[in-house]
């Protein structure tokens, strides 16, 4: 999932691509511009809450939102149990990106859409990769030990949950006590989708 997000974020004119769950928790992100780093969580939260409120109109789930600004554009795609965000240049030809966006959308949806079903080995592999992506994003070059823990975890949801606890604890004690909680919460939010 993260590879696809990164591929999309690396396209010229794309500044940030990120995914949040239905409660607005930021699950994963790919940024080509660091200036968005601090606001993603806030934006995810507000839009998810708005989406939840709008669901009371009984028009079904959100499928697509497009905001056009003086110099930029924000695209939001509904994922059933989450939202996909894309921040890009206003002048970007979206038609050229449509296929890639749909591909990412499908991939993310398959991770998020697995609610209430037993995760397959492919789901678990994707989850592991997403957890590694979160660790890399939050700890940067110091993510090595956490990645080793995630990679070394068994192929079950319980093992991944244990790995998540271990990763958070080790991060708090040895790497970054401020980000440990956020990292753990984001990893747990991913796993939550399969409970």
């Amino acid at each position, binding site marked *: 999932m993260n590879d696809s997000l990164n591929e999309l974020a690396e396209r010229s004119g794309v500044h940030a691509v990120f995914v949040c769950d239905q409660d607005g928790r930021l699950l994963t992100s790919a940024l080509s511009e660091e200036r968005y780093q601090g606001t993603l969580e806030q934006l995810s939260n507000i839009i998810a809450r708005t989406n939840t409120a709008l669901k009371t109109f009984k028009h079904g789930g959100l499928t697509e939102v497009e905001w056009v600004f003086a110099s930029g554009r924000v695209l939001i795609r509904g994922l059933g149990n989450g939202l996909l965000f894309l921040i890009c240049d206003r002048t970007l030809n979206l038609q050229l990106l449509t296929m890639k966006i749909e591909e990412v959308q499908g991939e993310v949806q398959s991770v998020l859409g697995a609610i209430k079903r037993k995760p397959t080995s492919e789901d678990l592999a994707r989850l592991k990769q997403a957890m590694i992506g979160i660790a890399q994003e939050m700890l940067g070059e*110091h993510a090595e030990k956490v990645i080793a*823990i995630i990679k070394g975890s068994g192929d079950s949801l319980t093992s991944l949950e*244990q790995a998540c*606890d*271990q990763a958070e*604890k*080790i*991060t*708090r*004690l*040895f*790497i*970054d*006590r401020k980000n*440990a909680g956020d990292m753990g919460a984001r990893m747990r939010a991913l796993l939550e989708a399969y409970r």
Partner: protein
Amino acid sequence: MQIVNYGLAGLAILVMAFNTVMTFRLRSKLIGGEVGARWNVLSLLALLFLIAFILSPLLLILSVPVDYLLLAVFAVFFLGAVFVGLVVRIVGDILQVMDLLER
């Protein structure tokens, strides 16, 4: 007796110098986190002890009054207690992680 005191002060300086160097070497291997923060305090205390130990022979040379000597002794006791507390917390943290990794 005086020679024994100087000898002990010299030994204390040597051992503490070695400990301080080791403390700072290990510090470079720690990235951060709670253990990193505790280790920073521990490193500063080690440095403080080393400086105090180096200056300690002056207490004998200058024949510092007993009141000040006692103050120095109890300050060392207090900082020593803080030092031991930090070591215990760090060992506790490490044992916690080892326990977590064994699960």
